[in-house]
């Protein structure tokens, strides 16, 4: 025997159920934090190795990307085993970041052939694009603001030398990935 529903009951059920699907967004924060901290360590580490220690192979620090990639794959496989639902948000985010990852690889190939001068503003623009669109998809304004911040830092950094641009890139990671990533994690932690 089914319980009699009032219009208010119906609206409450609809609202409650739609709210329950929102918590999946929190799973995205791991990726922002992983790549945010990884790239932040990469940029600051490269700057320190190059400017302070004058180490010629300062770019070796970017092996950290391989570590991030392994952790990322571990997260992704583990999450896909556990997940019981496919959301449009996750699908859109997946497509966005797959496209951007290809873009990062292609731009790295281009710079390795043409020289690394002014590579950082371009990387910052790609980082900004990712967080700006992600923020719009997730309707999470700190990511949108962070993305705009990255664009601004990319534009300003062209007035500085290549070494200083690394610090701009580190700042871009802080504002567009690390801070919004932590905010995203905190925002949805209570609903898990």
């Amino acid at each position, binding site marked *: 025997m*089914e*319980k009699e*529903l009032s*219009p*208010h*009951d*119906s*609206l409450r*059920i*609809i609202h*409650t*159920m*739609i709210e*329950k*699907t*929102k918590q999946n967004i929190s799973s995205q924060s791991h990726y922002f934090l992983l790549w945010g901290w990884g790239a932040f360590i990469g940029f600051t580490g490269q700057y320190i190795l190059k400017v302070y220690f004058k180490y010629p192979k300062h770019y070796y620090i970017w092996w950290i990307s391989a570590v991030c990639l392994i952790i990322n794959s571990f997260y992704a496989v583990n999450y896909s085993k556990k997940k*019981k*639902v*496919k*959301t*449009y948000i996750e*699908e859109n985010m997946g497509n966005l970041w797959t496209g951007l990852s290809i873009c990062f690889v292609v731009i790295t190939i281009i710079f390795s052939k043409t020289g690394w001068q002014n590579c950082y503003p371009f990387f910052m623009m790609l980082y900004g694009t990712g967080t700006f669109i992600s923020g719009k998809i997730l309707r999470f304004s700190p990511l949108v603001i962070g993305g705009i911040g990255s664009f601004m830092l990319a534009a300003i950094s062209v007035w500085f030398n290549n070494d200083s641009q690394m610090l701009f890139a580190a700042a871009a990671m802080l504002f567009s990935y690390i801070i919004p990533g932590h905010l995203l994690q905190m925002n949805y932690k209570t609903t898990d």
Partner: protein
Amino acid sequence: MEFKELDPILHAPLRLAVISLLLSVKEAEFTFLKEKTNSSAGNLSVQITKLKEADYIEVTKQFKNNYPLTICKITPKGIHAFEDYVKALQSYMILPKPD
């Protein structure tokens, strides 16, 4: 004031909950729906069958790690029915304007 008729398929707590969940996601496993609606497997199974018979949802059976897996997805007809249901609900919620 005219009250629109509420779709009897959707005007039941568990079926409405299932449709509302499926509306927000691309597809969901049976266990996800069971967890979120806090319902028993038997009752949920019956309600899913009713929604499937009305063509409001698609149900596919698969295997995951050798365990059977039921995946549910809302159909365009289901989305349309849900929109009509919400419109009908609004006719009950809006008070008539005084003359």
